[in-house]
């Protein structure tokens, strides 16, 4: 087998390969980059920034709830804080942080040089950034203009009659822009994964993180249209009085709930599956064992995604759908626990008989397994409908979904930050500080969210800005707030470690963790073109196979291994004929005689995204009207935005892809 590990490249000039733009890092370069790695970094930095904003909102919430009858934060501000906290964490924090890894890591994992549509990728990022800005700029217009209807914005509270300010409009337009960003990104990743894998990497040889990227992307393109439609209806209700959600006009508020949760429940899996993928990479690496039950893990991920579309009404058990609907959705919800459980057991199976090294990423990964299990168990408890009649919208639910989304998703993503940091920066994050970081975060997290179960049992509903003495909620709220501040502190530790290690982190080579997947075959950080030669893959854990040889006895016989439609000789080991096939594919890949061919930077994605941003701003903020069409005024800024958007797309279409 050809060597996968790339020669250690000290500088790009030293490589023989021509036609690569020198790596600049000026502002203009970042604004026009279409390199998946730079876009990945942009996604990651922006997502962490928004995570900090969402975290600050959480700290304010916990400060308000620390004592009974607290008047520190008024009801309007409090309602804005929890709405913005939820919306920010979901759409601007956890989702884009996953996308950062898809961009940077997944592309390397499949041995590609970039995503299928690099400029579209940049466009997705800029739209995400502008979507986040549209949401958060509402703070500058006074607290009454900040979205305050909750992150799932139940109609008719969001209708103009009950929310007359622009608060809901900021929320709608921001989510619409973010929806476009997510959908375009998802299409891009699906095409990339299906078409741009290194030769020899059959679907069933893809790393688990790539699998979860593929499946999550499919979830996004199937789930987001539902919320897009729901938001268009809401916008029409508010702006032109259509009445989709107004009973007086023949509409129904429950329509919103159905549409929203048809999106909203798959969204939960959009948030958690990437973390599953990350944990599925980290656990084998540090156990020195291949992932236990790889193919079952793939099927389980697909099953979770598929079943995720059939459970939405479990968010609506208290709306009076009747016993038949409730029974069906209870059953489907419980079914999801089966593939999810399989994943947990398979991770434990991977660790069993292994040689586990508890580095910081491994600590976070194992912490994730432990905490996600708790969230999974409370999830099954909610599926028991009569119990949900108590749990619904109580602190028990808050405990549940933070165990899933923080204890699960975010712990997984932070594990990913510690794990792939050396790949991105060439330096490893401070390990001993990292371990402190883990244990303080672990303690803070559980101190914050475990007592919320008790508050739920004591009947404390969510979204109460204040509670009286004698409600019985005083004690645990103090504990929760204390835990929250500890958790906030541990996030600052993470931030500090990320920043500090950029300068002081120990320099490492291509594969500091002795990991098995392709992203570790190239230098840290990788050159612009990722791989000087596109690697050939003949095994699920190619770097281990190369270094330690394949383990014939234990090779999973059901793995589909084929190249060019032909089965490989023996399991995982290409014979001469296979090697010839690979060589030919490889030669084609190299576009013989032209060297490595990388697309040029482009500012059109930024221009087009800026156009959409201006269009939204023009619709939200009063500027002089240019055109009035019935009740809708098109201000100067909105028209300018439309022109910029169209101009950007036009210029983009006719821009030559390379010199």
């Amino acid at each position, binding site marked *: 087998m050809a060597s996968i590990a790339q020669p250690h490249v000290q500088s790009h000039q030293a490589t023989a390969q021509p036609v690569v733009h020198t790596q600049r890092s000026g502002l203009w370069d970042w604004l026009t980059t279409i390199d998946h790695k730079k876009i990945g970094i942009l996604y990651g930095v922006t997502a962490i920034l928004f995570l900090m904003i969402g975290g600050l909102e959480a700290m304010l919430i916990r400060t308000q709830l620390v004592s009974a009858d607290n008047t520190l934060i008024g009801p309007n501000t409090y*309602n804005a804080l929890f709405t913005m906290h939820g919306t920010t964490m979901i759409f601007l924090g956890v989702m884009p942080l996953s996308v950062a890894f898809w961009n940077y890591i997944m592309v390397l994992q499949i041995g590609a040089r970039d995503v299928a549509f690099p400029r579209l990728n940049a466009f997705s990022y800029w739209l995400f950034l502008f979507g986040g800005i549209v949401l958060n700029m509402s703070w500058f217009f006074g607290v009454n203009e900040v979205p305050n209807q909750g992150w799932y914005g139940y109609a008719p509270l969001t209708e103009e009659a009950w929310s007359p300010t622009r608060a809901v409009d900021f929320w709608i337009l921001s989510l619409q822009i973010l929806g476009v960003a997510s959908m375009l990104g998802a299409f891009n990743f699906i095409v990339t994964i299906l078409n741009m894998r290194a030769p020899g990497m059959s679907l069933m040889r893809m790393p688990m993180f790539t699998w979860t990227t593929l499946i999550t992307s499919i979830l996004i393109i199937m789930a987001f249209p539902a919320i897009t439609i729901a938001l268009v209806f809401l916008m029409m209700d508010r702006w032109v009085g259509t009445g989709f959600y107004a009973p007086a006009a023949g509409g129904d*508020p429950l329509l919103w709930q159905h549409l929203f949760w048809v999106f909203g429940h798959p969204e939960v899996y959009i948030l958690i599956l990437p973390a599953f993928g990350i944990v599925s990479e980290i656990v084998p690496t540090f156990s020195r064992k*291949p992932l236990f039950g790889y193919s079952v893990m793939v099927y389980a991920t697909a099953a979770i995604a598929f079943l995720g579309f059939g459970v939405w009404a479990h968010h609506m058990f208290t709306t009076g759908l*009747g016993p038949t609907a409730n029974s069906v959705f209870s059953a489907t919800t419980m*079914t999801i626990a089966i593939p999810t459980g399989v994943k947990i057991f398979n991770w434990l199976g991977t660790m*069993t008989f292994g040689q586990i090294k508890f580095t910081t990423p491994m600590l976070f990964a194992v912490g994730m397994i432990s905490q996600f299990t708790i969230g999974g168990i409370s999830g099954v408890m909610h*599926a028991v409908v*009569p119990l949900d009649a108590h749990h619904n919208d109580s602190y028990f639910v808050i405990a549940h979904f933070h165990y899933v989304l923080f204890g699960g998703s975010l712990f997984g993503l932070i594990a990913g930050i510690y794990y792939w940091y050396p790949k991105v920066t060439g330096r490893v994050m401070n390990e001993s500080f990292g371990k402190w970081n883990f244990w303080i975060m672990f303690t803070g997290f559980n101190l914050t969210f475990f007592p919320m179960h008790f508050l739920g049992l004591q009947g404390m509903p969510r979204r109460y800005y204040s509670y009286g003495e004698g*409600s019985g909620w005083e004690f645990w709220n103090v504990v929760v707030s204390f835990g929250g501040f500890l958790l906030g502190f541990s996030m600052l530790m993470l931030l500090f470690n990320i920043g500090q290690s950029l300068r002081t982190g120990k320099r490492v080579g291509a594969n500091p963790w002795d990991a098995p997947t392709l992203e570790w075959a190239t230098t840290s950080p990788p050159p612009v073109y990722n791989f000087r030669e596109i690697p050939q893959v003949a095994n699920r854990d190619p770097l281990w196979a190369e270094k330690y040889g394949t383990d014939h006895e234990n090779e999973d016989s059901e793995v589909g291994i084929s190249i060019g439609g032909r089965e490989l000789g023996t399991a995982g080991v290409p014979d001469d004929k296979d090697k010839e096939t690979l060589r030919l594919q490889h030669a084609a890949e190299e576009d013989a005689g032209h060297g490595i061919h990388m697309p040029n930077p482009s500012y059109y994605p930024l221009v087009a995204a800026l156009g959409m941003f201006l269009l939204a701003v023009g619709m939200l903020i009063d500027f002089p009207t240019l055109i009035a069409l019935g009740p809708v005024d098109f201000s100067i800024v909105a028209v300018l935005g439309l022109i910029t958007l169209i101009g950007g797309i036009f210029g983009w279409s006719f821009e030559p892809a390379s010199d």
Partner: protein
Amino acid sequence: MERHSQDRVEQTGQPRRRGMLSRLLTLGTLALMALLVLAGCGPDIEPPYSHISPESPSTEAIQDLYKLVFWLSLVVFVGVQFAVVYIAMRYRRKASITKRPPQIHGSRRLEIAWTIIPAIVLLLLLIPTITLLYEGDAAAEEGDIVIDVYGKQWWWEFQYREDANQDGQSLGVVTGNEITVPVGRELQLNLQTNNVIHSFWIPRLSGKLDLIPGHVNTLSITPTEVGEYYGECGEFCGIQHAWMRFTINVVPEDEFYAWVNNWRTSPPTTVRGEATDQVVKAPDAFAVCLGCHRVNGVEGSVAPQGIEAPRFIGPNLTMLPCRETLAAGMLENTPENLAIWLNDPGAVKPGNYMADAIQPDTLTDEQIAELVEYLYSLEPEGGCTSAEGWTDPSVASEAAPVPGS
């Protein structure tokens, strides 16, 4: 895999493994004890909103199911967490070992096992869930006493159905945020709203059920113990969602009918006219209140109620002193607090619709004092559930007008 475990035993020896187990057990015990100590620090009085102290058949049925779910969950929780910690400690990398571990790719038998066993456990949960769902649904169709419950921003209106006559006693009571019901009787609550979505929850008597514009959801409750129970809004409904509480007084049946009778025989009152032997005089400023509130027996008390009422309409104030709280649970019901409320409701409960009508300078201090005095006179001698009725028999009229519902 078998080959490997033999290797392991040789390398590590049996005693080490036992040491690990006992260490783990100690750790687990310590953690459990810490948790219990932590739980013990909590308040020892029973929290008023706790749903794990049920007092009605429907919540008791939920509680029974809860116990099954809780113990199953605890077994899974302890099992998985124990496995995580055990495996993490047992298979740590040791510097002395240079050979890589066996490259196990999976075990079909194990994977089938941990697919099927959870499926069976879940089936154990699903069957009683579905059974209870259909039982609860059948129960909601009947009811001795029918009450229309209207969710408002941010308070509750309760209208006892006029036609639900019991023992020759007509009901037809309309009240806000606090109701009195007879013990052991089945209540049928028709939950509805004309504004936004709310959720009706009395943790000790019933699970949640939403109030949704355009829908009527029916809830059945049979309180089995005399006492005071607390309810709250469970679905975010706007700025004052936190203060949309209510109280249910479960009383013996005779007290309930005394309460109904007292409500229905509230003294005839005039605002604009003069006091007579038959008619009580309310202060002039009460005319302001009548724009949004009703009091049974008061002349010209015609503010709309129920599903047709616009958002700014407030609760029926008949027998106001009988209520425990003001502003849907926000203030204790005392004359001082009522005066504070009447002076500036927007400062007490920001965003509430009364603040649109009553600003700090709307009512003078004298007017507020008069109103407080009048509203606190709206209590029958001996209390609201007393059979004694109102003080002056001449003002208590059997034929007091009942505001139409």
